[in-house]
């Protein structure tokens, strides 16, 4: 992996996510930002995909089960070249191709319609099963939220994936420790995702979800094993990469006030400057 390249890709996705949501004026900042590093590693290095041919048969599949992270995914797809970046400013506008929750029938590069929590995991398992049944090597990547794991369907899907030894399935748990109504430990304490996934029959890696090198390393290790599906527990922060948003208490869905707006604009300015300097440097 070219670390510098993936980190630049990450910065571009984060910048585009912020610009996209800032343009709309409100939205799911917290959970979009916490998955940026993972999206950068997947779309910037790991996944075999072709933006000019989103339906390419030999592609790897990506399903964002935590559908409310859609704005982050759209930014990654736009930076990758699936559609023009200006399209990001149509997020949630009437008649848009970018609804807040992904719709596979609207957006180039979106593999599955998600948003009703828990369902994307099962669809990802179905895709991985299909490839296994057909003796194909396509990989399936799925990001699920820590709050989303309240849904029993996820645990059904994990049992099923382990039973069928779907080793080309990679489940990322975005452990950002907050759900809509507050900290996950106060609502449904997850206790220990890594131990649970291990008990459910997965290979488990626990990584710093803000560290692209660490995420990449975990995926590489997961790829090298051929027995069980892979779970990567991402230690993340809701609002990740923007200090002000990380520290904001209620950051699942933000309707920014003046102070918030100034902080978001400052973060956009800093990322723009950083990327320009990299281009010059």
């Amino acid at each position: 992996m070219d670390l510098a390249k993936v980190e630049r890709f990450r910065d571009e996705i984060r910048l585009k996510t912020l610009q996209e949501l800032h343009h709309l004026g409100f939205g799911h900042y917290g959970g979009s930002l916490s998955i940026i590093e993972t999206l950068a590693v997947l779309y910037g290095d790991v996944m075999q995909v072709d933006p000019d041919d989103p339906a390419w048969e030999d592609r790897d599949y990506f399903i964002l089960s935590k559908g409310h992270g859609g704005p982050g995914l759209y930014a990654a797809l736009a930076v990758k070249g699936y559609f023009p970046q200006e399209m990001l400013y149509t997020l949630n506008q009437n008649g848009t191709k970018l609804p807040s929750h992904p719709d596979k029938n609207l957006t180039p590069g979106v593999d599955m319609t998600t948003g009703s929590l828990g369902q994307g995991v099962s669809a990802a398992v179905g895709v991985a099963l299909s490839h296994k049944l057909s003796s194909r090597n396509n990989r399936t990547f799925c990001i699920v939220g820590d709050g989303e794991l309240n849904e029993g369907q996820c645990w059904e899907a994990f049992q099923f994936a382990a039973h069928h030894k779907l080793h080309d399935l990679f489940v990322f748990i975005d452990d950002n420790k907050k759900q809509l109504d507050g900290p996950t430990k106060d609502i449904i304490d997850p206790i220990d995702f890594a131990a649970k996934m291990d008990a459910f029959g997965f290979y488990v890696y626990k990584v710093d979800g803000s560290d692209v090198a660490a995420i990449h390393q975990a995926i590489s290790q997961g790829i090298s094993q051929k027995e069980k599906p892979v779970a990567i527990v991402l230690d993340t922060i809701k609002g990740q990469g923007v200090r002000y948003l990380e520290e904001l208490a209620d950051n699942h869905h933000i309707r920014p006030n003046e102070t918030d707006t100034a902080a978001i604009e400052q973060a956009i300015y800093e990322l723009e400057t950083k990327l320009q300097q990299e281009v010059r440097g």
Partner: protein
Amino acid sequence: MISTVYEKEKREMRQVYAETILELAKANPDVIALEADLMSAITTNKIKAEIPNQLINSGIMEANMMGVAAGLSLTGKIPYVHTFGQFATRRTYDQLFVSGGYAKTNIKILGSDAGITAEHNGGTHMTFEDIGLMRLVPQAHVYEASDSTMLGYLLRRIEKEYGVHYIRTIRKNAIKLYEENETFEDGKGKLLRDGEDITIIATGIMVAEALQAADILEQHGIHAAVIDMYSIKPIDAELITEYAQKTKAIVTAENHNVIGGLGSAVSEVLAENHPVSMYRIGVREQYGQVGKVDYLKTYYKLSDRDIAEAAIKLFAR
């Protein structure tokens, strides 16, 4: 075209399902049957034995099974999902609605043990709502198979038609209605018996009851037309309107709640096209219970006599 002896078939509907899916799966490696631990109830274990890669038993996890089916469809597979009707619809409704209908995936669903035919499984397993639920899924096709010829034909036909298809059926022996060469189009009903005085529109096990009711009515000098409306959505609005114009009144008959099912669908067509007097035979504001089909038929007023009585009252109005 149709038999008039009202005799039970030798082949059970579950055998028809298992044998047809086995035939389809052998011919097409993309056909995958999914079960949620009811393989032995529907006799698909023979598929598991012959082509194990094309029958996936998900275990008792219907919501996940529906999502897995959607995932299989994303990669070009043709999943046939079976479980009892209430699990296939009530239990997985958001999954089949979002990952199925809304996501525009290709899922074939068989809901077995329709209505009172769940018999000794009782109220928890007795679905009087599945037609209604499935009618509310945009673009979903909803059928109720009335005999083995029809079930086999529908299962084969929908393999070639993309989208969410729901077939409701009983699991055991139906009354023989159709010869082996009969065909069943999407959005069409079958006129099984013509008549000028009143029309009975029925589905599933109620088709045979409707034919028997027509015999009773004949003794009262009332000539009843009988239609098998196996395609509940899309529904044959043309045929319904034609018979509303031709006969004096319409009785619908279904092994389902009168709300949301065939009776609702027919009344919607009539209200918009040609309102006539009608009565809906079906379950009214009640839950299921254990019992034999004959007992339950009487209890829920689903017998040929109930249909005939309703028709006589309507005709006399």
